[in-house]
């Protein structure tokens, strides 16, 4: 397994489990024994995750990546010792930052749900090869991350327009759309990963899926009002 396999969701899961610090040891940059150079991907993921931690009020120094070869035992030992010392000085997760336990957990749960969105919005940057440590800070700026949150979109199916055609429902990769034949479709916002597949899939003549940004998503229509009564059926 390459360090590039370390998923952003793994890091967040560790914090969600109450771990106070996460350390990632990767091979030295530019010394990949393959052609993969996945350690750059790991680095980019860490840089993004740090900004996200910062955004949610956690100290980004709780996450660290260091590069070393299998023969660099001293670098590993020194790196880990320094990191443990650092994390100890920061105190338990949340405490150091003054966030209470329930708040911390709910923030981490919410942020974890956004991992797919972060990956999609930063696809190119997450695959970049930074040349010098000076570039690290600039890969993801604070403003950029803030914008990710302020410009975040949600998808909503207009019950007036939905023809319950099942197209979006079938295409949704995470089964976040509930409904059925003749049952108006509704997006379960808790499951939705904001990929926009439904928006693309909805036949243009219906145009039922709406992109919403900067305002709250309307409440789903009540279960009992979701059945569509077709005119043809009325006639019969």
């Amino acid at each position: 397994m390459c360090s590039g396999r370390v998923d952003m969701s793994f890091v967040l899961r560790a914090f969600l489990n109450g771990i106070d610090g996460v350390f990632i040891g990767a091979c030295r940059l530019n010394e990949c024994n393959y052609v993969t150079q996945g350690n750059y991907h790991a680095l980019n993921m860490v840089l993004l995750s740090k900004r996200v931690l910062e955004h949610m009020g956690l100290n980004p120094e709780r996450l660290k990546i260091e590069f070393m070869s299998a023969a660099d035992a001293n670098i590993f030992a020194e790196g880990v010792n320094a990191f443990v010392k650092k994390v100890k000085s920061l105190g338990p997760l949340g405490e150091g930052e003054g966030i209470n336990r329930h708040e911390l957990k709910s923030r981490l749960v919410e942020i974890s749900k956004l991992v797919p969105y972060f990956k999609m919005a930063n696809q190119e940057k997450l695959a970049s090869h930074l040349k010098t440590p000076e570039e690290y800070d600039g890969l993801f700026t604070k403003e950029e991350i803030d914008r990710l949150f302020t410009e975040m979109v949600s998808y909503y199916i207009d019950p007036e327009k939905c023809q319950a055609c099942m197209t979006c429902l079938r295409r949704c990769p995470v089964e976040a759309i509930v409904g059925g034949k003749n049952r108006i479709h509704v997006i379960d916002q808790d499951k939705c990963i904001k990929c926009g597949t439904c928006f693309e899939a909805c036949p243009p003549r219906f145009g039922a899926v709406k992109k919403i940004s900067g305002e709250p998503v309307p409440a789903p229509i009540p279960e009992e009002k979701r059945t569509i009564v077709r005119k043809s059926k009325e006639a019969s």
Partner: protein
Amino acid sequence: MTLIKKPRYILEEKCTGCTTCVEYCPAKYPDEYNQEISKNKAVHIYFAQAIPLIAYIDESCLYLKENKCRICEGVCKNNAIDLKQTPKKREITVGAILLAPGFEPFDPKTKEEYHYGEFANVVTSMDYERLLCSTGPYSGEILRGSDMKHPHKVAWIQCVGSRRVTPGENSYCSAVCCTYTQKQVILTKDHHAEAECTVFHNDIRSYGKDFERYYERTEQLPGVRFIRSYASIVREDPNTKNVTVRYSTFDEGVKEEAFDMVVLSVGLNPPVDAKDVAEKFGIQLDPNNFCKLNPVNPMESNRPGIYVSGAFQGPIDIPESVFSASGAGSQIGQLLDYRRGNLAEERVYPSERDVSKEEPRIGVFVCHCGANIGRIVNVPETVEYCKTLPSVVYAQEQLFSCATNSAREITDVTKEKGLNRVVIAACSPRTLEPLFRDTVREAGINQYFCEMANIREHDSWVHSKEKEEATEKAKDIIRMSVARACHLEPLQEFDLPVNKAALVVGGGVAGMNCALSIANQGHEVHLVEKAKELGGMVRRVYSTLEGLDVQAYLHDLIAKVYGHPLIHVYHDATITEATGYVGNFVTVVKSETGVAEIKHGASVITIGADLYTPTEYLYGQDERVMTHLDLEGRIAERDEKIVNAKSLVMIHCVGCRNEDRNYCSRICCSQSVKNALRLKEINPQMDITILFRDMRTYGFKEDFYREASNKDVKFIRYEPQEPPQVEAGESDEGRPVLKVTAPDYVMGKKLVIDADILALAAAVIPSAATNEVAALFKVTLSPDGFFKEAHVKLRPVEFGTEGVYLCGLAHYPKFMQETINQAYGAAGRVLTLLSHDTVVASGSVAQVNESRCIGCGACVSACTYGALDLRDTKQGKKAMVNPVLCKGDGLCNSKCPTGAIQLKHYTDQELLSEIDAMATEEEILPEMDAAVGDV
């Protein structure tokens, strides 16, 4: 052959490399591996990566010397110590012998002027190498011998023992020191960013692939100086023990400067026992005491059946040693092909039990590793803990899980208790996972149901002073492994058939030698050449610097290729299509005989290189200006305009070592020395001037440079910012000449030379077909546009794309002899593939769940192996994996926003289950409560 095996005093089959004996051994003596800077024990493992990774006892042992001690016997839990061993004589019959005795670093103690061994802070580059290394004498700290302080000002003196005609030193260039010094400078700056590094050098010989860029990177580091000067060590300060170096520059004259440490960049001597080796094996040595080589087959000694590889060929670096090792292997393969596979045995495993309907039944085996784990981690307590874990139905301890009897026990218990997952809590999976997978397979369950928990390297070895915590950590690690084991899935490795034929693209010296070596081992070879005739660039070369008749050699080589029944040559050919994968390629070739679809198991790219067409120095405008290759042809024809010229000038580095082509073409310096020497032979009166930047006549070619200089060929250095100027003009006698103006730094003035002929050392550039071929075979290029090998040292003749190989100038400019080494090297690697009937593809590859895939393509762009594609389906674009090309790095998995693509054996679920098991609720909750309490 008669071999004498020295006693190791350790039973190899019993020693597990646990190093307990090393810990208890009381006999300390200077550690040879660490250049005797630090100490080691009489019983020890030679170095951390030794193979086999087991101990041996040397002469400093108290028992061997004085018949006392024997502590090691007492502490070894596996009874592996045998102090009664004696040398053993063995006679073996072999079909071929490969000599690879390496080299000996030059010993500066033999020359007083270096003050090595006398001044505490004068070290050799070998000493320094160990100082830099984390497994070195001071665990990677650079410390001065005199006061154990970090040196701040470090100087390197180049060419110690090399390029010198003084007695006791070598006249040749050691070929590797310039670049290893640069590496040491970079590492020094890594250790200590403020360090001031000074390199006193003659020519900088950055002739290897990517070396020029490396040199530039080193030179541009802050606090690094490269000073072109002879340097001598004059004195040691009696108080500070700093070392004063005397040197001179053109601007400032003679200067003295003190350094905290001086590193002697020592050269490469032949092995100390070279003469002895030569005598025993009945082979000849060259005048420098390296092996005497066949000029057209540098891996061959003068005695049939005895081959040579590595630095015994002469001073060469690691990639070239690897070429020659693989190449010599291929030649031995040619000799012994008829016996291939005779010693191989096929394993038969029991059929696999289907456990898909069963709940996980996990067995945990906790290894003591002798005292290695057991002394620190409370193993019995850990075993009891394991029994409390969910899904664990069985747990036991073992003294050495890897010992044959223990492995059998694992197999038996697995069968007996009906286990369907096995967790082995022992050492790193890097060494023993294959063994344990095999063990599990023997028990009739899928090998991917084996999981290792590393409680040695990750635990007992690093927490030897915290026994209780180490025991708790062992439990944590095992708990995580058990959690993961629950989710493991049975995976199938699949055998892909291997087509036994090879395709060689390019019919130059590289392609022909490679094709012949493959064909000589019984494989069909399709050799594709774009021109009407075989030979490539070498058709225009007439002799080597060493005097080989190249055309005669080429003639002979071509005849061998045409005469070989297994080689099919396609002339005038172009490749229109290349598909398939390792073992099963299909390539469409259009040639004079029509269109052919070739099925083959391996591909070798040997498309050579092109020559730069200069735009500088009136080339193409004045017929007296020509390239080196043109000059060589005209010398061979005895063209009167050339051989009767009064004055001839050569300009080096035309079209390379510049911004456009930031590399050295490697062969031009020697080529111009060769032409100069030929011309001097024909017309000793001719004035020959060579305008160079650095003379890069590395290795034994240095002697020819010296010979040319002795024959009055003038060598004048120029700097890139002040290149020579050329214009047509008249000499003082009214002869029409080319006026060549260049600065002369030694004399400190402008020099104007009247030249009748101007020869340009034009760069060797990547073949025009490179991009096209790279796209067809899905292989990558280096920054300079040559083909990029999978790894410079570990896999230097193959591509990252499996089943595709490279050699010759397509890889980088090189001499014919080096090309031949590499061509056989590539053939050797091709044979390791083609000699098998099948290739095994790993079970741990990516897999797509199409219903979750949104076709965003993040995975496709993350994959460097081309294993992923987007395919149109009714449900839109979907990613598709070609499992044969997948290498299991999992980058796609961590890029996928929906979790549609999963790396088998390392799925999100498997890894998250480990993270979830890492911290238990009981541990975390109180901490979180405490946090809340404080707010």
